[in-house]
């Protein structure tokens, strides 16, 4: 064994610093292209339906993972859903306190078999509950970039 435990200052051990120099370019894919265009251009959510398994996938998928069918039936789905579960985040990735706690929820989209993970807004953490009805709040059309953050957050349905 080395005597590493006796090394008080880590820079006393010989080391070399490097990185794996890559950046990734993720295409949104065939199904994702249409999903994000609808969000950006129309502020709407779409899913794909598997007629064999009677499932509506949100986000939409090109194929059914259960039966492998090519999914070609696109259906507009509501921009509302229910909080399936949620958490209140207090620290950022570096462990620093956030200025405001952030509420992150998995939202089951109404009438579908899927949903989205997103922020909840216009609500205090203590008022959030599982099963709560929420709706998507989109950014102004001019601000949308064809990204999941084109939805600003979900808020309680009043």
């Amino acid at each position, binding site marked *: 064994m080395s005597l590493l435990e006796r090394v008080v200052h880590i820079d006393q051990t010989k080391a*070399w610093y*490097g990185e*794996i*120099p*890559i*950046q*990734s*370019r*993720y*295409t*949104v*894919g*065939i*199904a*994702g*292209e249409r999903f994000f265009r609808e969000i950006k251009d129309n502020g709407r959510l779409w899913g794909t339906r598997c007629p064999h398994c009677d499932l509506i996938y949100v986000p939409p998928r*090109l*194929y059914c*993972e*259960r*039966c*492998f069918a*090519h999914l070609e039936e696109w259906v507009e789905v509501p921009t509302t859903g229910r909080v399936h579960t949620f958490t209140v985040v207090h620290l950022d990735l570096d462990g620093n306190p956030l200025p405001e706690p952030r509420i992150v929820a998995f939202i089951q989209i109404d009438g579908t078999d899927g949903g989205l993970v997103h922020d909840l807004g216009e609500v205090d953490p203590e008022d959030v509950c599982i099963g709560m009805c929420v709706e998507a709040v989109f950014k102004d059309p001019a601000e949308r970039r064809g990204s999941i953050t084109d939805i600003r957050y979900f808020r309680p349905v009043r």
Partner: protein
Amino acid sequence: MARNRVAIVGAGMTKFVRRAQETSKELAWEAASKALESCELTLDDIDAVVIGTAPEAFDGVHMKSEYLSDGCGGWGKPVIRGYVGGGTGVLSVIQGWYHVASGLFDTVLVVAEEKMSACQPHPQGAFITIFDNITERALGPNLLWIFALEMNAYMTRYGLSKRDIALVSVKNKRNAADHPAALLGDPNITVEDVLNSEVLAWPVQRLDVSPVTDGAVAVVMAAEHVARRVTNKPVWVEGVGWNLDTAYWTNRDLSYPTYVEEAARMAYKMAGITEPRKQIHIAEPYDPFDYKELHHLEGLLLFDKGKAPEATALGITQRDGDLPVCPSGGLLGVGNPIAAAALMKVAELFWQLRGEAGARQVPGQPKRGVAQAWGDLMQVGTVVVLGI
């Protein structure tokens, strides 16, 4: 040891392209569903799934096979991923084989996928740790160094010229012109084109190298009793072998791939092959670089050391030669989506042995073929022998 007989009964692949719009999952699904369609099976008929995919960094997703699993038909099934870098595509078939040979499963869907275009600015960034982090990385190595050093060692040991080696690139890119899924097929390419292409790291030039590629390939493997029900042309896995040399490239023979020979000997023994040069009718050795095809043909014991270039010059390895080599067009012509490229070689043998290779069909009704891949830290050989 008692083993069940295992056959490949279906195969499918995506087009190999430079930049796919599809997500990695969508590519995997396309190949996997084509493979199932080819043998008229559905996902319900599949007992287990093997996913072959190489470095996580290419697609930019850690736990890559878990990410890919729904596109590979893994929902609600036993799924496993094997990984030996570039050798992965053939290893995945070996894994599929022992899943079935062991009696554990009757049917296995084997899917290999790679999306290298996601990796920016170039996939070689993901390969950087192929060099030793302490003794080599500080020199700022480029991925091509290792191949250039190896190619030069091979050329010098056997007194080969660049022209001898360029013939492989010409052959494979011409063969690929007949492959409907190929990225770089070119029926008119010449040796001069290769010799006049840009020098990347001497002796490696642009056209000595396979391209960065996106794509996926899948095969369906089945136990004998299922295989005979599914098809009247099962292609049997007769032998499998794999072997690793030292991970230190500074401690191995760069002019001869001993690890390929060891893997081949293991596979040949299982297949009952005592004279590979007579008993192997068609070969798909791994050819990410033109010299590697020659290197690997020698490791596969199909030619004497240093003699594969001469055989190439004599036309023996042409599609209509005595030993057709890379009739698919290989990685140099069809493309090199790492794990998928090696599985493409297995799929090519499947189509060739069944007489379904279309314009690529080698004459003479070949009965047995060998596919081989290479990778990891450039020190692994993976081999399968298929026969009808």
